[in-house]
């Protein structure tokens, strides 16, 4: 059967006769990789552009239209030692990129204006105490207005828009006092300039915008980096399917190019990427990603299969049904939507701070104005003092207090193997006091392990591993990996649904079902010991061996559970798997609380019960059946091996085999929350000092500028302390 790869879905035209494709590349870390890839790809004739983006871990390629097949680039990268997958920009990521460019442009404009207005302000400040002519001062003020007003109108857009959105929804956020402060400061300065006054606050207003934009840009960059990694993950998971394009011809196409009614081929060891019904073939399928159940399901003609199930033994032909028609998925999606709505009710620390902050500041300004009027000052002077209070309390440091810590902490977590999906996850994770684990794929590793390898002679085990290389069966793959076998045995024959056999040195060896190897009598010993394991037999002539294969616990699971207990965090297991399997895991890890055979709706119900008791639940899970409960929990984590839907729902995603990132993330976020609170107190403390000065009416623009930049720098420096979080975790 002829198999071709079709990437035309990902290729776009980039100008006259040039085609463009983006590839997500695994394992690009340094300048060396970058140079190697760019040179290797540029060496292909007719390639006009090969450029690596180290931040996003992607390669952009352009070539003369019609001369090259994109599959060739992937093969070339494979030769160079990198795995690459075509990458399609999601619209969400494109918006994010546009947004971050806009913010950077605003920051550029605001910084330019700040520097130039400062250049004009300093002569005024020194001139006010020496011999500057009033005409010269007015000239400088008018020039400042000329720069600051258009610059603020442009660079203030992100704040004005967000404040307007909040006000029209009849709520308030941090941007409301910012917008009011900036507008009043600019308006008052113009009036003062017309009246030939000594002080104008153009510099303070535009400097405030600059500092706040720094915070926004940092925040945006963090989100953009996370989204790029998440986008690559989606591409690396290679959502492709083998579609029949002719009676005997199949083509490997992206899932996006598959339509209902198409027929796809599902080979043993492949994960199904579509929903559909089996029309031909018999096999066993593993639906653990969808239901949590580790026992295989027999599939024959008419059996529905869902995206995410793994085909185990036979080849299946599947007719694709509409993506969302599967009742199971539809149910999960419905639960997910409800849970996500509940999630959005969480109020972020910054918003809580601003809800307190805005009324207090505005009331203080109002009281100042009235106070001065009652004390006998003119309306003009009283209003100028009131506006000065608003300027000096403008939440410059408050605006930086949280994004700077988030940026630093997410960098530290990134190094510990944890990716953040949402910015406020740090705050929520720091509050977690109860962890709910899923079992399959979360506490256990997603791939199978040979449990009794030590009981078998090394040379026999290696022979079994070499034989296993000839089979596609996942159990065989586990045996091959455990034995580190390198070279497959020549002439091995696979008998579908039975096993593999070969002849070595005149002796027949077999690997497969116990009946295939004539080892039924040995089976009961092993299954009595470990009811959860799958059993595979190996025979060499008349010698028979039994291998027990199962999903092993993550290597450090026990230590992580102990570390969580030491931190006074409650732990329980909620699994869709059968009771004996869950008991075994709970017992091995010393977790007293567990529930087995739980449906997605039951998981949510249990989490709601815990929530009602006032617990902040961290849900760690990977299966499709976990997605709704991940969304329902206060905060959630998924391993990188998780189903797509779960990964998109989880707040944090952790990489690699160990479970330690869970503890590392909790520690880092607790530290980060501590620093955030400290920053907020620093900002408030500064206000407590500065406000009396402002109320007394002696604030000059010089004092305002110095106080503003001083507090901002203090907060930024303090944020850097969130970096030093990597203590020994377990």
């Amino acid at each position: 059967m002829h198999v071709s790869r079709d990437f035309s879905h990902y290729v776009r035209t980039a100008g006259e006769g040039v085609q463009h494709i983006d590839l997500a590349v695994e394992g690009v870390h340094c300048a060396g990789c970058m140079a190697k890839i760019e040179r290797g790809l540029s060496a292909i004739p007719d390639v006009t552009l090969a450029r690596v983006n180290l931040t996003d871990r992607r390669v952009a390629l352009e070539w003369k239209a019609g001369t090259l097949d994109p599959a060739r680039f992937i093969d070339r990268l494979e030769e160079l030692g990198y795995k690459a997958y075509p990458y399609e920009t999601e619209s969400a990521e494109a918006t994010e990129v546009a947004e971050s460019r806009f913010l950077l442009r605003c920051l550029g404009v605001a910084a330019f204006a700040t520097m130039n207005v400062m250049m004009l302000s300093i002569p005024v400040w020194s001139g006010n105490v020496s011999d500057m002519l009033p005409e010269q001062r007015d000239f400088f003020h008018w020039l400042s207005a000329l720069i600051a007003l258009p610059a603020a109108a442009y660079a203030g857009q992100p704040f004005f828009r967000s404040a307007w959105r909040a006000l029209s929804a009849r709520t308030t956020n941090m941007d409301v006092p910012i917008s009011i402060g900036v507008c009043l400061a600019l308006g008052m300065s113009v009036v003062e300039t017309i009246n030939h006054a000594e002080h104008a606050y153009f510099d303070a207003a535009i400097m405030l915008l600059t500092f706040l934009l720094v915070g926004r840009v940092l925040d945006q960059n963090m989100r953009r980096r996370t989204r790029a990694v998440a986008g690559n993950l989606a591409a690396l998971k290679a959502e492709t399917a083998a579609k029949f394009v002719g009676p005997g011809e199949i083509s490997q196409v992206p899932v996006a190019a598959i339509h209902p009614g198409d027929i796809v081929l599902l080979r043993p060891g492949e994960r199904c990427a579509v929903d559909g019904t089996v029309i031909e073939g018999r096999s066993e399928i593993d639906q653990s990603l969808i239901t949590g159940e580790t026992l295989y399901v027999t599939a024959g003609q008419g059996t529905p299969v869902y995206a995410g199930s793994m085909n185990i033994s036979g080849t299946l032909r599947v007719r694709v049904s509409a993506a969302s028609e599967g009742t199971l998925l539809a149910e999960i999606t419905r639960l997910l939507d409800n849970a996500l709505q509940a999630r959005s009710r969480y109020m972020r620390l910054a918003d809580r701070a601003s809800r307190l902050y805005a009324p207090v500041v505005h009331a203080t300004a109002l009281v100042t104005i009235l106070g001065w009027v009652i004390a006998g000052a003119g309306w003009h002077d009283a209003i100028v003092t009131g506006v000065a209070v608003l300027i000096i309390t403008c939440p410059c440091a408050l605006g930086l207090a949280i994004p700077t810590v988030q940026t630093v902490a997410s960098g530290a977590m990134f190094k510990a193997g944890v990716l953040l999906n949402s910015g406020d996850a740090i705050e929520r994770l720091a509050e977690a006091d109860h962890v709910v684990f899923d079992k399959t794929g979360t506490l256990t590793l997603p791939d199978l392990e040979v449990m009794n390898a030590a009981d078998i002679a090394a040379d026999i085990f290696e022979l079994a591993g070499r034989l296993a290389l000839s089979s596609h069966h996942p159990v065989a793959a586990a045996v091959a990996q455990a034995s580190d076998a390198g070279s497959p045995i020549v002439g091995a024959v696979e008998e579908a649904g039975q096993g593999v056999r070969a002849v070595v040195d005149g002796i027949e060896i077999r690997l497969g079902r116990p009946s295939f190897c004539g080892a039924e009598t040995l089976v009961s010993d092993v299954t009595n010991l470990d009811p959860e394991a799958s059993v595979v037999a190996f025979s060499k002539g008349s010698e028979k061996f039994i291998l027990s294969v199962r999903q092993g616990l993550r290597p450090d699971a026990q230590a992580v559970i102990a570390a969580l207990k030491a931190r006074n965090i409650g732990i329980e297991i909620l699994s869709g798997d059968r009771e004996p399997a869950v008991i075994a895991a709970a017992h091995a890890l010393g977790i007293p609380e567990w529930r087995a055979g739980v449906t997605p709706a039951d998981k949510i119900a249990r989490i709601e019960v815990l929530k009602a008791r006032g617990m902040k639940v961290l849900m760690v899970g990977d299966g499709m059946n976990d997605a709704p409960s991940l969304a329902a929990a206060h905060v959630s984590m998924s391993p990188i091996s998780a189903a797509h839907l779960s990964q998109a729902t989880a707040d944090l995603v952790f990489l690699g085999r160990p479970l330690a990132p869970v503890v590392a993330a909790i520690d880092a976020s607790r530290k980060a929350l501590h620093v955030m609170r400290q920053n907020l107190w620093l900002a408030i403390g500064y206000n407590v000092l500065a406000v009396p000065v402002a109320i007394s009416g002696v604030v000059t623009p010089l004092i305002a500028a110095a106080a503003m930049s001083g507090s901002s720098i203090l907060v930024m420096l303090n944020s850097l302390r969130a970096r030093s979080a990597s203590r020994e975790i377990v």
Partner: protein
Amino acid sequence: MEILVILVPLALMLGLAGLVAFLWSLRSGQYDDLDGAAWRAIADDEPPQEAPAKR
């Protein structure tokens, strides 16, 4: 003080030139890959190519 007539516009022009340069660098994608740019500066020069590929 007549010198201000020259110096102030001159200062503003310099500032504007900086802003224009920043906006140009942003538009030409120089901020898209900050990690990579840091390394490119110290990377070896590429060996001369036989066919100069321009786009």
